[in-house]
């Protein structure tokens, strides 16, 4: 991660959007930041935590998004500017608190929630849009259109949130959050923070202070007054602008990363003098006067936005209120089918939409070249499926689970959760995972399955969760399983980090976000205290782990816990050398003749083990192999040799 506290105002830095947001928060003078890791949002808190001590602020990885948001609100109530950051799903976890926070209002410290959406669900289990949620919850929402705006808008939003006394949301998407671009730095404040929770009600104030006892409907009325004030501010916001001719053949209305795609499309089609772009940054409440003024730029309007047709619906709603004889442009977008109603967009999709509407032809490259290169890729380039890293403990765990379920013979299966181990839906984890929804969801689903004995259900159920996910959302489901005696095994894949999102610490690691040692919350002590039967296994011990799981499956009692403890290989490799040199003994390897159906390369599928087709033998790829030595125990011929490195 880049150093976001560099004190060089006016210089340009190459920041990802998340670093730009974090820098904006620093420039705004925040004192408190909390988050739960989630792609594509993780580097916001990560980069703040890295400089927190030096900047005199506090930053934490919270146990989940709900606690992160509540903790940040606590700081706001005591007069400290505070930020909570999360991925799209985080806002679902927080929504109950948000629905009440909007009614109470915030404290004297401005409070901002950053929500990063992941169009196309590139690193997510679902695709969803924060914008309609902000509308549903009556929360002002803005969205940066580039990296500079990500910084500038964050700083500006803290002023606004503080002035309005309500939570504000900054929405970002993957291609801003995780892309890099130029950011010109501003000044860093030198103000000292002083926190105090003010308990005296200010009865002279028209707006109710946060904790004045008032009926909720009255608070709702005051909230709408705040939204009207926000809309008024948005009417003259510098983050909304029009680029293009006075009279355009087509007007594009867009925001966020789609502003960049629209701009690319206009450049590629050389349409600067024919197509205008209304780039919006303040999306909810919609600055209606500003939008209305620009709707007359063209009689054709195209909405370029990802996931939900949020701008499209908002503007159509606005146009629906025009007087009956007013001119209305023709609207193009998701409703007309010109823009996809799912998945992320890119410049080519906008080029296609604009070309279709204006009747243009666009050819990026020579037609013969296109045909030839595409055909060559189709005929020669092999698929490259995702897999666990070489040396990943999850591969070993799922190998043991697969074998234990097979040996048990009752058609047992695995309910899954969110993390690297979601890959076990596919060949990487031998297709063992059968359900996957949200954080903690797998254990919840297992609770129901484990109570179906009276209906003849006899299949063993294993719920897998990562260590961080266990703390985040699985503990209530485990307690429920123990209390209601639901029959399932909770397998905790304890690799000592939140690996999927960048190895952030969690309550079990004994380390804080700011790098301070702390009291680790032991998962086995916790599970013991709940009264669960707990086993701790080393997944690299394939035989022992399989036997333990098999034994636990045979037990008739309620929820049980098996902890698979082995550090994430990517962390281990940073600290120490490989434990083994691994090689294939070509004399012993019998290749295709192996009665095991080439277990090592066809089934186990570690990328460090490759199949040498010419020689008809398996081979170690020394560039990829991490030297874990697990494959030695997979080969029935004893042809794979490990020697201490």
């Amino acid at each position, binding site marked *: 991660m880049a150093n976001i506290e560099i004190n060089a105002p006016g210089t*340009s*830095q*190459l920041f990802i959007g998340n670093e730009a947001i974090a820098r904006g928060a620093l420039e705004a003078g925040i004192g408190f930041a909390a988050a739960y890791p989630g*792609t*594509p949002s993780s580097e916001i808190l990560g980069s703040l935590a890295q400089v927190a001590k030096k900047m005199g602020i506090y930053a934490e990885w919270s146990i989940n998004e709900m606690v992160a948001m509540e903790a940040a609100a606590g700081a706001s109530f005591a007069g400290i500017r505070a930020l909570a950051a999360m991925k799209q799903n985080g806002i679902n976890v927080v929504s109950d608190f948000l629905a009440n926070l909007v009614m109470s209002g915030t404290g004297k410290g401005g409070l901002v929630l950053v929500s990063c959406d992941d169009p196309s669900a*590139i*690193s997510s289990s679902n695709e969803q849009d924060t914008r309609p949620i902000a509308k549903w919850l009556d929360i002002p929402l803005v969205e940066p259109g*580039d*990296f*500079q705006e990500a910084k500038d808008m964050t700083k500006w939003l803290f002023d606004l949130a503080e002035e309005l006394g309500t939570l504000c949301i900054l929405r970002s998407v993957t*291609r801003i959050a*995780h*892309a*890099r*671009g*130029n950011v010109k730095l501003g000044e860093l404040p030198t103000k000292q923070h002083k926190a105090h929770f003010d308990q005296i009600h200010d009865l002279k104030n028209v707006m109710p202070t946060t904790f004045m006892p008032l009926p909720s409907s009255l608070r709702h009325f005051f909230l709408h007054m705040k939204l009207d004030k926000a809309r008024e501010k948005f009417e003259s916001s510098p983050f909304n602008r029009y680029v293009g001719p006075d009279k355009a053949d087509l007007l594009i209305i867009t925001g966020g*990363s789609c502003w*960049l*795609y629209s*701009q*690319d499309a206009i*450049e*590629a089609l050389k349409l600067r003098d024919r197509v205008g772009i209304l780039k919006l940054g303040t999306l909810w409440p919609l600055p209606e006067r500003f939008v209305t003024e620009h709707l007359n730029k063209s009689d054709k309007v195209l909405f370029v936005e990802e996931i939900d047709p949020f701008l499209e619906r908002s503007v159509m709603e606005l146009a629906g209120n025009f007087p009956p004889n007013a001119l209305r442009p023709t609207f193009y977008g998701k409703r007309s089918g010109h823009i996809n109603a799912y998945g992320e967009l*890119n*410049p*080519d999709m906008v*080029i296609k939409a604009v070309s279709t509407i204006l009747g243009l032809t666009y050819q*990026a*490259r020579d037609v013969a*070249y*296109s045909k*030839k*290169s595409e055909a*060559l*890729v*189709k005929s*020669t*380039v*092999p*698929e*490259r*499926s*995702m*897999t*666990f*890293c070489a040396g990943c403990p999850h591969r070993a765990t799922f190998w043991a689970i697969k074998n234990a379920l097979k040996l048990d013979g009752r058609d047992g299966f695995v309910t899954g959760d969110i993390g690297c181990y*979601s*890959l076990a839906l596919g*060949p*990487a984890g031998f297709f063992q995972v059968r359900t996957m929804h949200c954080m903690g969801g797998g254990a919840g689903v297992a609770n129901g399955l484990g109570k179906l004995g009276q209906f003849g259900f006899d299949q063993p159920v294993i719920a897998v969760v990562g260590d961080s996910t266990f703390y985040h959302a699985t503990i209530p489901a485990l307690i429920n399983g123990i209390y209601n005696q639901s029959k399932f095994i909770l397998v905790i894949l304890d690799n000592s980090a939140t690996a999927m999102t960048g190895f952030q610490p969690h309550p079990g690691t004994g380390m804080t976000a700011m790098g301070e040692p702390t009291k680790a919350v032991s998962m086995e002590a916790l599970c013991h205290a709940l009264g669960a039967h707990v086993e701790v296994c080393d997944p690299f011990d394939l035989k022992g782990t399989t036997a333990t799981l098999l034994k636990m499956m045979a037990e008739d009692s309620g929820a049980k816990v098996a902890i698979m403890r082995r550090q994430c290989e990517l962390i281990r490799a940073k600290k120490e050398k490989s434990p083994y040199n691994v090689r294939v003994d070509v004399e012993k390897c019998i290749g295709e003749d192996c009665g095991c159906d080439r277990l090592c*390369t*066809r089934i186990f*599928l570690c*990328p460090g*083990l*490759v*199949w040498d087709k010419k020689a008809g033998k398996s081979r170690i790829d*020394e*560039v*990829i192999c991490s030297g874990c030595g697990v494959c030695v125990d997979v080969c029935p011929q004893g042809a794979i040799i490990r020697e201490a490195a």
Partner: protein
Amino acid sequence: MTKKELTKDPLNLIITGVGGQGNVMISLIIGNAFVREGFLVTVGETYGASQRGGPVMSHMRISKEIQYSPFIPDGCADIILGMEPVETLRMLGKYGNPNVITIINPRPIYSIDVTGGHAQYPDLNKLIETVKELSSQTWLINATEEAQKMGSHMFANAILIGALIGSGVLPLDKKSIEPVLRETFPKEIETNLVAFNKGIKLVKT
């Protein structure tokens, strides 16, 4: 400092390979060097789950005028730096054009589909011929092999950065890259500088 000019605006560079090879690191080094020379740079990367052994790419857009989007439009790559051969061809299929320049590390990394017998890895010599056929100019740089001679395949990245700079296809020189390399690899800077210079030498022979 001499004023650095782009041969084309925006200049579109793709760095491609397999998750874990280090394409993000390369894009960060090149990108930072460009920003320090006063250019507007946008970098888009594959990330998250696709890093786990999947195909990865960085799209870099360099301009004097506009902060471009992090996606190069189809068929519009100017330069492709391929850290793995089939991934280089995959990029040519989507982003290549008759003018594209390619720098390629010919060391294959087999996918689990190939290892598992569900897909075929093409003949390497034929593959490289195809890449040459689809490029206006191709440099073959045995980066992994040369890096292993230096003690670790990890130095392949610095060799490839050296090749990219030495080829002269970017308006950047040794002086613009060296300080960024020093900041990126403070611990192993000497070996990385040797690797970087080796890359420059390899591309020129």
